[in-house]
Protein backbone atom coordinates (compact mmCIF):
# COMPACT_ATOMS: atom_id res chain seq x y z
CA UNK A 1 0.00 0.00 0.00
CA UNK A 2 1.49 3.30 -1.04
CA UNK A 3 -0.62 5.34 1.42
CA UNK A 4 0.64 8.87 1.63
CA UNK A 5 3.99 8.26 -0.02
CA UNK A 6 4.82 10.67 -2.79
CA UNK A 7 7.82 12.12 -4.54
CA UNK A 8 9.73 15.09 -3.17
CA UNK A 9 8.46 17.03 -6.17
CA UNK A 10 4.85 16.26 -5.35
CA UNK A 11 5.22 16.97 -1.65
CA UNK A 12 6.90 20.33 -2.20
CA UNK A 13 4.12 21.21 -4.63
CA UNK A 14 1.62 20.96 -1.74
CA UNK A 15 3.15 24.16 -0.38
CA UNK A 16 1.67 27.35 -1.79
CA UNK A 17 3.27 30.76 -2.10
CA UNK A 18 2.72 32.64 1.12
CA UNK A 19 2.30 29.57 3.34
CA UNK A 20 3.68 29.50 6.85
CA UNK A 21 6.00 26.54 7.42
CA UNK A 22 7.45 25.22 10.66
CA UNK A 23 10.78 23.59 9.85
CA UNK A 24 11.84 20.68 12.06
CA UNK A 25 15.24 19.99 13.52
CA UNK A 26 17.53 22.57 15.07
CA UNK A 27 20.59 24.46 13.85
CA UNK A 28 22.35 21.91 11.56
CA UNK A 29 20.75 18.79 12.99
CA UNK A 30 17.92 16.83 11.33
CA UNK A 31 16.80 19.73 9.18
CA UNK A 32 14.48 19.24 6.17
CA UNK A 33 17.27 20.28 3.82
CA UNK A 34 16.25 18.34 0.71
CA UNK A 35 12.72 19.70 1.07
CA UNK A 36 13.77 23.34 1.30
CA UNK A 37 16.10 22.88 -1.66
CA UNK A 38 13.14 21.56 -3.64
CA UNK A 39 11.01 24.53 -2.58
CA UNK A 40 13.76 26.78 -3.88
CA UNK A 41 13.97 24.83 -7.14
CA UNK A 42 10.21 25.10 -7.59
CA UNK A 43 10.47 28.87 -7.12
CA UNK A 44 8.18 29.18 -4.12
CA UNK A 45 7.73 32.76 -2.88
CA UNK A 46 6.74 34.61 0.27
CA UNK A 47 7.26 31.71 2.65
CA UNK A 48 6.80 32.51 6.33
CA UNK A 49 9.22 30.37 8.31
CA UNK A 50 8.94 29.30 11.94
CA UNK A 51 11.80 27.74 13.87
CA UNK A 52 13.57 28.11 17.20
CA UNK A 53 17.14 27.90 15.85
CA UNK A 54 17.64 27.88 12.10
CA UNK A 55 20.75 27.74 9.96
CA UNK A 56 21.12 26.29 6.43
CA UNK A 57 17.39 25.80 5.90
CA UNK A 58 16.37 29.38 6.69
CA UNK A 59 19.42 30.88 5.03
CA UNK A 60 19.00 28.92 1.79
CA UNK A 61 15.37 29.96 1.39
CA UNK A 62 16.42 33.57 2.03
CA UNK A 63 19.16 33.20 -0.57
CA UNK A 64 16.55 31.93 -3.03
CA UNK A 65 14.30 34.93 -2.43
CA UNK A 66 11.60 32.58 -1.21
CA UNK A 67 11.00 34.17 2.19
CA UNK A 68 8.72 37.00 3.30
CA UNK A 69 8.93 36.52 7.06
CA UNK A 70 10.81 34.57 9.72
CA UNK A 71 9.75 33.86 13.27
CA UNK A 72 12.88 32.51 14.93
CA UNK A 73 14.93 32.69 18.10
CA UNK A 74 18.24 32.30 16.30
CA UNK A 75 19.51 32.01 12.74
CA UNK A 76 23.20 31.37 12.30
CA UNK A 77 25.92 28.81 11.73
CA UNK A 78 27.19 28.86 15.31
CA UNK A 79 30.93 28.80 15.73
CA UNK A 80 31.32 26.70 12.62
CA UNK A 81 30.76 29.58 10.23
CA UNK A 82 29.21 32.47 12.15
CA UNK A 83 26.40 34.62 10.84
CA UNK A 84 23.90 33.42 8.24
CA UNK A 85 24.83 35.59 5.27
CA UNK A 86 21.69 35.48 3.13
CA UNK A 87 19.35 35.74 6.10
CA UNK A 88 21.35 38.68 7.39
CA UNK A 89 21.40 40.46 4.05
CA UNK A 90 17.72 39.83 3.37
CA UNK A 91 16.75 41.32 6.70
CA UNK A 92 19.17 44.21 6.51
CA UNK A 93 17.89 45.11 3.04
CA UNK A 94 14.28 44.86 4.18
CA UNK A 95 13.30 41.99 1.91
CA UNK A 96 12.55 39.68 4.84
CA UNK A 97 10.62 40.65 7.93
CA UNK A 98 12.45 39.01 10.85
CA UNK A 99 9.98 38.82 13.71
CA UNK A 100 12.21 38.87 16.78
CA UNK A 101 11.52 35.99 19.17
CA UNK A 102 13.11 34.17 22.01
CA UNK A 103 13.09 30.43 21.33
CA UNK A 104 10.64 30.19 24.23
CA UNK A 105 8.19 32.59 22.58
CA UNK A 106 8.26 30.57 19.37
CA UNK A 107 7.38 27.59 21.54
CA UNK A 108 4.63 29.55 23.31
CA UNK A 109 3.09 30.58 20.00
CA UNK A 110 3.15 26.97 18.82
CA UNK A 111 1.63 25.88 22.12
CA UNK A 112 -1.20 28.37 21.67
CA UNK A 113 -1.99 26.74 18.35
CA UNK A 114 -1.61 23.19 19.63
CA UNK A 115 -3.86 23.92 22.62
CA UNK A 116 -6.54 25.68 20.58
CA UNK A 117 -5.92 29.05 22.22
CA UNK A 118 -5.66 32.54 20.73
CA UNK A 119 -2.47 33.14 22.71
CA UNK A 120 -0.27 31.49 25.32
CA UNK A 121 1.34 33.11 28.37
CA UNK A 122 5.07 32.75 28.76
CA UNK A 123 7.46 33.34 31.63
CA UNK A 124 10.60 35.43 31.28
CA UNK A 125 11.20 38.38 28.94
CA UNK A 126 11.51 40.84 31.81
CA UNK A 127 13.90 43.63 30.91
CA UNK A 128 14.19 42.51 27.30
CA UNK A 129 13.40 44.82 24.39
CA UNK A 130 12.08 41.83 22.41
CA UNK A 131 8.53 42.02 23.75
CA UNK A 132 8.10 45.70 22.91
CA UNK A 133 9.71 45.34 19.47
CA UNK A 134 7.65 42.33 18.46
CA UNK A 135 4.50 43.61 20.14
CA UNK A 136 3.89 40.88 22.71
CA UNK A 137 1.07 42.14 24.88
CA UNK A 138 0.56 41.57 28.57
CA UNK A 139 -2.47 40.52 30.54
CA UNK A 140 -2.99 40.88 34.23
CA UNK A 141 -3.28 37.41 35.69
CA UNK A 142 -6.84 37.17 37.01
CA UNK A 143 -5.75 35.48 40.24
CA UNK A 144 -2.47 37.10 41.25
CA UNK A 145 -2.57 40.38 39.35
CA UNK A 146 0.87 39.61 37.90
CA UNK A 147 1.56 40.96 34.44
CA UNK A 148 2.22 38.11 32.03
CA UNK A 149 3.31 38.25 28.41
CA UNK A 150 1.06 36.50 25.92
CA UNK A 151 2.36 35.16 22.61
CA UNK A 152 -0.20 35.03 19.81
CA UNK A 153 -0.94 31.71 18.17
CA UNK A 154 1.53 30.53 15.54
CA UNK A 155 -0.34 28.11 13.28
CA UNK A 156 1.81 26.98 10.34
CA UNK A 157 0.12 25.60 7.26
CA UNK A 158 2.58 22.70 7.40
CA UNK A 159 5.13 21.33 9.78
CA UNK A 160 7.89 20.01 7.54
CA UNK A 161 9.82 17.41 9.47
CA UNK A 162 12.75 15.26 8.44
CA UNK A 163 12.43 12.11 10.52
CA UNK A 164 14.49 8.98 10.86
CA UNK A 165 11.66 6.49 10.16
CA UNK A 166 8.17 6.71 8.72
CA UNK A 167 5.62 4.30 7.33
CA UNK A 168 3.46 4.80 4.28
CA UNK A 169 0.55 6.01 6.41
CA UNK A 170 2.59 8.73 8.09
CA UNK A 171 3.58 7.29 11.43
CA UNK A 172 6.94 8.88 12.24
CA UNK A 173 9.73 7.96 14.62
CA UNK A 174 12.53 10.34 15.52
CA UNK A 175 15.72 8.82 16.86
CA UNK A 176 18.00 11.33 18.50
CA UNK A 177 16.99 14.81 19.58
CA UNK A 178 13.37 15.57 18.76
CA UNK A 179 13.73 19.33 19.38
CA UNK A 180 10.38 21.08 18.72
CA UNK A 181 9.23 18.67 16.01
CA UNK A 182 6.47 17.06 18.04
CA UNK A 183 5.02 20.39 19.10
CA UNK A 184 5.27 21.67 15.52
CA UNK A 185 3.28 18.67 14.29
CA UNK A 186 0.49 19.53 16.75
CA UNK A 187 0.56 23.26 16.05
CA UNK A 188 0.44 23.02 12.26
CA UNK A 189 -2.63 22.44 10.17
CA UNK A 190 -0.94 19.46 8.58
CA UNK A 191 2.39 17.66 8.42
CA UNK A 192 4.77 16.77 5.60
CA UNK A 193 7.37 14.15 6.44
CA UNK A 194 10.63 13.43 4.74
CA UNK A 195 12.19 10.26 6.12
CA UNK A 196 15.54 8.55 6.10
CA UNK A 197 13.86 5.17 5.98
CA UNK A 198 10.41 3.89 5.12
CA UNK A 199 9.43 1.04 7.40
CA UNK A 200 6.59 -1.45 7.53
CA UNK A 201 3.72 -1.12 9.98
CA UNK A 202 5.22 -3.81 12.22
CA UNK A 203 8.16 -1.53 12.96
CA UNK A 204 5.80 0.91 14.67
CA UNK A 205 3.58 -1.70 16.34
CA UNK A 206 6.68 -3.02 18.08
CA UNK A 207 7.44 0.29 19.83
CA UNK A 208 4.38 2.52 19.64
CA UNK A 209 5.72 4.73 22.44
CA UNK A 210 8.49 5.77 20.03
CA UNK A 211 6.08 7.12 17.43
CA UNK A 212 6.47 10.89 17.59
CA UNK A 213 3.78 11.77 15.06
CA UNK A 214 0.72 9.57 14.56
CA UNK A 215 -0.38 8.90 11.01
CA UNK A 216 -3.67 10.76 11.25
CA UNK A 217 -1.85 14.10 11.44
CA UNK A 218 0.23 13.55 8.34
CA UNK A 219 -0.58 14.45 4.74
CA UNK A 220 2.53 13.39 2.86
CA UNK A 221 5.50 11.06 3.30
CA UNK A 222 8.64 11.37 1.17
CA UNK A 223 11.44 8.83 1.21
CA UNK A 224 14.49 11.08 1.44
CA UNK A 225 17.64 9.31 2.61
CA UNK A 226 20.25 11.94 3.32
CA UNK A 227 17.46 14.51 3.40
CA UNK A 228 19.06 16.48 6.25
CA UNK A 229 22.41 16.86 4.48
CA UNK A 230 24.62 18.87 4.76
CA UNK A 231 23.21 18.81 8.29
CA UNK A 232 23.52 15.74 10.50
CA UNK A 233 20.94 13.07 11.26
CA UNK A 234 21.45 10.64 14.09
CA UNK A 235 22.22 7.74 13.77
CA UNK A 236 22.94 7.95 10.06
CA UNK A 237 25.38 10.81 9.50
CA UNK A 238 27.03 13.79 11.15
CA UNK A 239 27.10 17.41 10.06
CA UNK A 240 29.20 17.73 6.90
CA UNK A 241 31.15 20.88 7.63
CA UNK A 242 32.83 20.97 4.25
CA UNK A 243 29.49 20.83 2.48
CA UNK A 244 28.07 23.56 4.71
CA UNK A 245 31.11 25.66 3.87
CA UNK A 246 30.60 24.99 0.16
CA UNK A 247 27.02 26.21 0.47
CA UNK A 248 28.15 29.38 2.20
CA UNK A 249 30.66 29.98 -0.55
CA UNK A 250 28.00 29.50 -3.22
CA UNK A 251 25.08 31.31 -1.61
CA UNK A 252 26.39 34.77 -2.30
CA UNK A 253 24.91 35.03 -5.76
CA UNK A 254 21.86 33.79 -7.64
CA UNK A 255 23.90 31.85 -10.17
CA UNK A 256 26.03 30.08 -7.62
CA UNK A 257 22.92 29.24 -5.58
CA UNK A 258 21.43 27.71 -8.73
CA UNK A 259 24.59 25.64 -9.08
CA UNK A 260 24.26 24.52 -5.46
CA UNK A 261 20.64 23.47 -6.00
CA UNK A 262 21.53 21.70 -9.21
CA UNK A 263 24.40 19.88 -7.56
CA UNK A 264 22.04 18.42 -4.95
CA UNK A 265 19.09 17.74 -7.22
CA UNK A 266 19.76 14.14 -8.16
CA UNK A 267 20.56 13.10 -4.59
CA UNK A 268 17.50 14.91 -3.26
CA UNK A 269 15.18 12.98 -5.56
CA UNK A 270 16.91 9.62 -5.52
CA UNK A 271 14.91 8.18 -2.64
CA UNK A 272 11.49 9.22 -3.80
CA UNK A 273 11.80 9.06 -7.57
CA UNK A 274 10.20 5.63 -7.64
CA UNK A 275 7.21 6.87 -5.64
CA UNK A 276 5.64 8.78 -8.49
CA UNK A 277 7.31 7.08 -11.40
CA UNK A 278 8.59 10.41 -12.62
CA UNK A 279 11.08 12.94 -11.40
CA UNK A 280 11.19 16.59 -12.34
Amino acid at each position, binding site marked *: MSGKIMSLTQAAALVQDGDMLALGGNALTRIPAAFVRELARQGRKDMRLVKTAGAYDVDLLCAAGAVAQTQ*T*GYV*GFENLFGLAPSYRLSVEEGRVQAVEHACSTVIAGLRASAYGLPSQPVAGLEGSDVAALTGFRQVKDPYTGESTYMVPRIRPRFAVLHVTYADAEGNARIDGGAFEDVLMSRAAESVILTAERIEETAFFVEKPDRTAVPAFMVQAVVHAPGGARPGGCHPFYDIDEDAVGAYLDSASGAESLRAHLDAWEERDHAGSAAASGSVV
Partner: protein
Amino acid sequence: MSVALREGAAEDVRAAADRMAVFLSRFIRDGELVFHGVASPLPMAAVVMARNTHAPNLTYLNIPGGVDPKPSHLPGSTVARQLMEGALSYFTLTEIFDLSARGKLDLAFLGGAQIDARGDMNLSFIGDPASPKVRLPGGAGSAHILPTAGRTVLWRTVHDARSFPERCDFVTASGNVEAVVTPLCIFKKAEGRLRVKSIHQGVTADALRAATGFDLGDLEQTPTTPEPTDAERVALHAADPEGVRQREFI
Protein backbone atom coordinates in the same frame (compact mmCIF):
# COMPACT_ATOMS: atom_id res chain seq x y z
CA MET B 1 42.95 42.25 23.08
CA SER B 2 40.74 41.08 20.26
CA VAL B 3 43.22 42.69 17.89
CA ALA B 4 46.10 41.08 19.70
CA LEU B 5 44.42 37.71 19.44
CA ARG B 6 43.64 38.06 15.78
CA GLU B 7 47.23 38.97 15.03
CA GLY B 8 48.70 36.60 17.60
CA ALA B 9 49.94 33.11 17.27
CA ALA B 10 47.71 30.04 17.55
CA GLU B 11 49.27 29.69 20.96
CA ASP B 12 47.55 32.89 22.11
CA VAL B 13 44.21 31.50 21.00
CA ARG B 14 44.84 28.27 22.83
CA ALA B 15 45.81 30.10 26.00
CA ALA B 16 42.77 32.39 25.86
CA ALA B 17 40.41 29.50 25.18
CA ASP B 18 41.88 27.46 28.02
CA ARG B 19 41.59 30.31 30.45
CA MET B 20 38.04 31.16 29.54
CA ALA B 21 36.88 27.55 29.67
CA VAL B 22 38.48 27.07 33.08
CA PHE B 23 37.17 30.37 34.43
CA LEU B 24 33.65 29.52 33.23
CA SER B 25 33.87 26.10 34.86
CA ARG B 26 34.63 27.65 38.24
CA PHE B 27 31.15 29.14 38.39
CA ILE B 28 29.60 25.68 38.45
CA ARG B 29 28.77 24.46 41.95
CA ASP B 30 28.65 20.77 42.64
CA GLY B 31 25.18 19.29 42.31
CA GLU B 32 23.79 22.06 40.11
CA LEU B 33 21.60 21.79 37.04
CA VAL B 34 23.68 23.50 34.34
CA PHE B 35 22.63 24.49 30.82
CA HIS B 36 24.26 25.95 27.74
CA GLY B 37 22.69 26.56 24.37
CA VAL B 38 23.56 26.90 20.72
CA ALA B 39 26.98 28.21 19.61
CA SER B 40 28.61 27.52 22.98
CA PRO B 41 31.84 25.51 22.67
CA LEU B 42 33.50 27.22 25.67
CA PRO B 43 30.69 26.43 28.13
CA MET B 44 30.44 22.93 26.68
CA ALA B 45 34.11 22.34 27.46
CA ALA B 46 33.69 24.02 30.86
CA VAL B 47 30.78 21.79 31.88
CA VAL B 48 32.38 18.58 30.69
CA MET B 49 35.65 19.39 32.48
CA ALA B 50 33.93 20.45 35.71
CA ARG B 51 32.62 16.93 36.16
CA ASN B 52 36.22 15.85 36.57
CA THR B 53 37.29 18.64 38.86
CA HIS B 54 35.06 20.18 41.52
CA ALA B 55 31.51 19.36 40.36
CA PRO B 56 31.18 15.60 39.81
CA ASN B 57 27.47 15.73 40.69
CA LEU B 58 26.39 18.45 38.28
CA THR B 59 23.56 17.66 35.90
CA TYR B 60 24.34 18.75 32.34
CA LEU B 61 21.47 19.96 30.15
CA ASN B 62 21.71 21.04 26.52
CA ILE B 63 19.62 21.65 23.40
CA PRO B 64 19.72 18.17 21.83
CA GLY B 65 18.31 17.02 25.14
CA GLY B 66 20.76 14.46 26.48
CA VAL B 67 20.81 14.63 30.27
CA ASP B 68 24.39 14.20 31.48
CA PRO B 69 25.81 12.97 28.19
CA LYS B 70 29.25 11.44 27.94
CA PRO B 71 30.22 12.71 24.49
CA SER B 72 32.82 10.62 22.65
CA HIS B 73 34.21 13.89 21.36
CA LEU B 74 33.03 17.49 21.59
CA PRO B 75 31.20 18.59 18.43
CA GLY B 76 31.71 21.92 16.67
CA SER B 77 27.95 22.51 16.79
CA THR B 78 26.63 22.49 20.34
CA VAL B 79 23.32 21.20 19.02
CA ALA B 80 24.90 18.03 17.61
CA ARG B 81 24.03 14.47 18.46
CA GLN B 82 27.20 13.85 20.47
CA LEU B 83 25.50 15.73 23.30
CA MET B 84 23.04 12.86 23.66
CA GLU B 85 25.60 10.05 23.85
CA GLY B 86 25.46 8.04 27.04
CA ALA B 87 22.55 10.00 28.48
CA LEU B 88 20.10 8.24 30.81
CA SER B 89 17.22 10.46 29.77
CA TYR B 90 16.30 13.13 27.25
CA PHE B 91 15.07 16.54 28.28
CA THR B 92 14.16 18.80 25.39
CA LEU B 93 14.80 22.50 25.03
CA THR B 94 11.11 23.13 25.67
CA GLU B 95 11.42 21.29 28.97
CA ILE B 96 14.53 23.28 29.87
CA PHE B 97 12.69 26.56 29.35
CA ASP B 98 9.86 25.31 31.54
CA LEU B 99 12.33 24.15 34.18
CA SER B 100 13.91 27.58 34.22
CA ALA B 101 10.52 29.30 34.28
CA ARG B 102 9.58 27.44 37.44
CA GLY B 103 12.82 28.45 39.13
CA LYS B 104 14.65 25.13 39.02
CA LEU B 105 17.47 25.78 36.56
CA ASP B 106 20.50 26.61 38.69
CA LEU B 107 22.98 27.95 36.18
CA ALA B 108 22.99 28.86 32.49
CA PHE B 109 25.84 30.03 30.27
CA LEU B 110 24.83 32.53 27.60
CA GLY B 111 26.82 34.49 25.06
CA GLY B 112 26.27 38.03 23.82
CA ALA B 113 27.54 40.06 20.88
CA GLN B 114 27.29 43.10 23.12
CA ILE B 115 27.27 43.07 26.91
CA ASP B 116 26.72 46.41 28.54
CA ALA B 117 27.50 48.09 31.85
CA ARG B 118 24.26 46.78 33.36
CA GLY B 119 25.01 43.22 32.36
CA ASP B 120 22.32 43.27 29.71
CA MET B 121 23.13 41.57 26.43
CA ASN B 122 22.44 41.97 22.76
CA LEU B 123 22.33 39.25 20.13
CA SER B 124 19.76 40.90 17.90
CA PHE B 125 20.82 44.07 16.12
CA ILE B 126 23.70 46.46 15.71
CA GLY B 127 22.24 49.87 14.97
CA ASP B 128 18.56 50.69 14.73
CA PRO B 129 16.36 47.55 14.90
CA ALA B 130 14.01 49.08 12.32
CA SER B 131 16.89 49.34 9.86
CA PRO B 132 19.79 47.43 11.34
CA LYS B 133 23.38 47.87 10.34
CA VAL B 134 23.91 44.24 11.31
CA ARG B 135 21.21 41.67 11.76
CA LEU B 136 22.67 39.37 14.44
CA PRO B 137 21.44 35.78 14.83
CA GLY B 138 18.97 36.48 17.63
CA GLY B 139 19.14 35.70 21.32
CA ALA B 140 17.89 32.09 21.18
CA GLY B 141 16.63 31.38 24.69
CA SER B 142 18.40 34.21 26.48
CA ALA B 143 15.41 36.55 26.96
CA HIS B 144 13.70 33.69 28.76
CA ILE B 145 16.63 32.22 30.65
CA LEU B 146 18.33 35.39 31.93
CA PRO B 147 15.43 36.51 34.12
CA THR B 148 14.29 33.02 35.19
CA ALA B 149 17.42 30.92 35.82
CA GLY B 150 18.90 31.03 39.29
CA ARG B 151 22.16 32.41 37.96
CA THR B 152 23.57 33.08 34.53
CA VAL B 153 27.16 33.58 33.45
CA LEU B 154 27.81 35.40 30.20
CA TRP B 155 30.92 35.24 28.11
CA ARG B 156 32.39 36.85 25.03
CA THR B 157 35.66 36.02 23.31
CA VAL B 158 36.14 39.51 21.94
CA HIS B 159 36.79 42.22 24.51
CA ASP B 160 36.64 45.65 22.91
CA ALA B 161 34.72 48.88 23.39
CA ARG B 162 32.08 47.96 20.81
CA SER B 163 31.37 44.65 22.50
CA PHE B 164 31.25 46.19 25.98
CA PRO B 165 29.39 49.50 25.61
CA GLU B 166 27.72 51.57 28.28
CA ARG B 167 24.38 50.53 26.79
CA CYS B 168 23.52 47.86 24.22
CA ASP B 169 22.01 49.01 20.93
CA PHE B 170 19.17 46.63 21.74
CA VAL B 171 18.56 44.64 24.92
CA THR B 172 17.93 41.08 23.82
CA ALA B 173 17.98 39.80 27.40
CA SER B 174 18.35 41.08 30.91
CA GLY B 175 18.26 39.36 34.25
CA ASN B 176 20.07 37.25 36.79
CA VAL B 177 23.61 37.74 35.56
CA GLU B 178 26.20 36.74 38.12
CA ALA B 179 29.33 37.29 36.08
CA VAL B 180 30.81 37.85 32.64
CA VAL B 181 33.97 36.09 31.49
CA THR B 182 36.12 37.70 28.77
CA PRO B 183 39.68 37.16 27.52
CA LEU B 184 40.77 40.09 29.73
CA CYS B 185 38.82 39.90 32.95
CA ILE B 186 35.90 38.59 34.92
CA PHE B 187 33.06 40.98 35.65
CA LYS B 188 30.63 40.43 38.45
CA LYS B 189 27.28 42.17 38.59
CA ALA B 190 26.66 44.13 41.76
CA GLU B 191 24.01 46.75 42.43
CA GLY B 192 22.87 46.62 38.84
CA ARG B 193 26.23 47.22 37.24
CA LEU B 194 29.21 45.20 36.05
CA ARG B 195 32.31 45.58 38.22
CA VAL B 196 35.67 44.02 37.53
CA LYS B 197 36.02 41.06 39.83
CA SER B 198 39.49 40.10 38.64
CA ILE B 199 41.88 40.86 35.81
CA HIS B 200 43.63 38.04 34.01
CA GLN B 201 47.37 37.65 34.38
CA GLY B 202 49.37 39.82 32.00
CA VAL B 203 46.53 42.29 31.39
CA THR B 204 47.08 45.82 32.68
CA ALA B 205 44.34 47.95 34.16
CA ASP B 206 44.97 50.53 31.43
CA ALA B 207 44.63 47.96 28.68
CA LEU B 208 41.36 46.75 30.22
CA ARG B 209 40.01 50.30 30.41
CA ALA B 210 40.97 50.98 26.83
CA ALA B 211 39.20 47.83 25.66
CA THR B 212 35.96 48.54 27.58
CA GLY B 213 33.28 50.98 26.51
CA PHE B 214 31.99 51.74 30.00
CA ASP B 215 33.56 53.19 33.10
CA LEU B 216 35.28 50.61 35.27
CA GLY B 217 35.87 52.79 38.36
CA ASP B 218 38.83 52.22 40.57
CA LEU B 219 40.82 49.12 39.63
CA GLU B 220 43.72 49.50 42.05
CA GLN B 221 42.60 46.79 44.45
CA THR B 222 41.39 44.46 41.73
CA PRO B 223 42.92 41.01 42.15
CA THR B 224 44.42 38.93 39.41
CA THR B 225 42.36 36.01 38.20
CA PRO B 226 44.02 32.85 39.48
CA GLU B 227 45.54 31.08 36.50
CA PRO B 228 44.24 27.63 35.59
CA THR B 229 45.73 25.04 37.90
CA ASP B 230 47.48 21.98 36.60
CA ALA B 231 44.49 19.88 37.62
CA GLU B 232 42.17 22.19 35.72
CA ARG B 233 44.36 22.09 32.64
CA VAL B 234 44.48 18.32 32.70
CA ALA B 235 40.73 18.04 33.13
CA LEU B 236 40.09 20.53 30.33
CA HIS B 237 42.37 18.78 27.88
CA ALA B 238 40.80 15.46 28.78
CA ALA B 239 37.36 16.92 28.18
CA ASP B 240 38.24 18.59 24.90
CA PRO B 241 41.40 17.05 23.47
CA GLU B 242 40.63 18.34 19.97
CA GLY B 243 40.39 21.94 21.12
CA VAL B 244 36.82 22.59 19.93
CA ARG B 245 36.75 25.43 22.46
CA GLN B 246 39.18 27.35 20.27
CA ARG B 247 36.61 27.61 17.50
CA GLU B 248 34.99 30.51 19.30
CA PHE B 249 38.04 32.61 18.47
CA ILE B 250 37.95 32.05 14.74
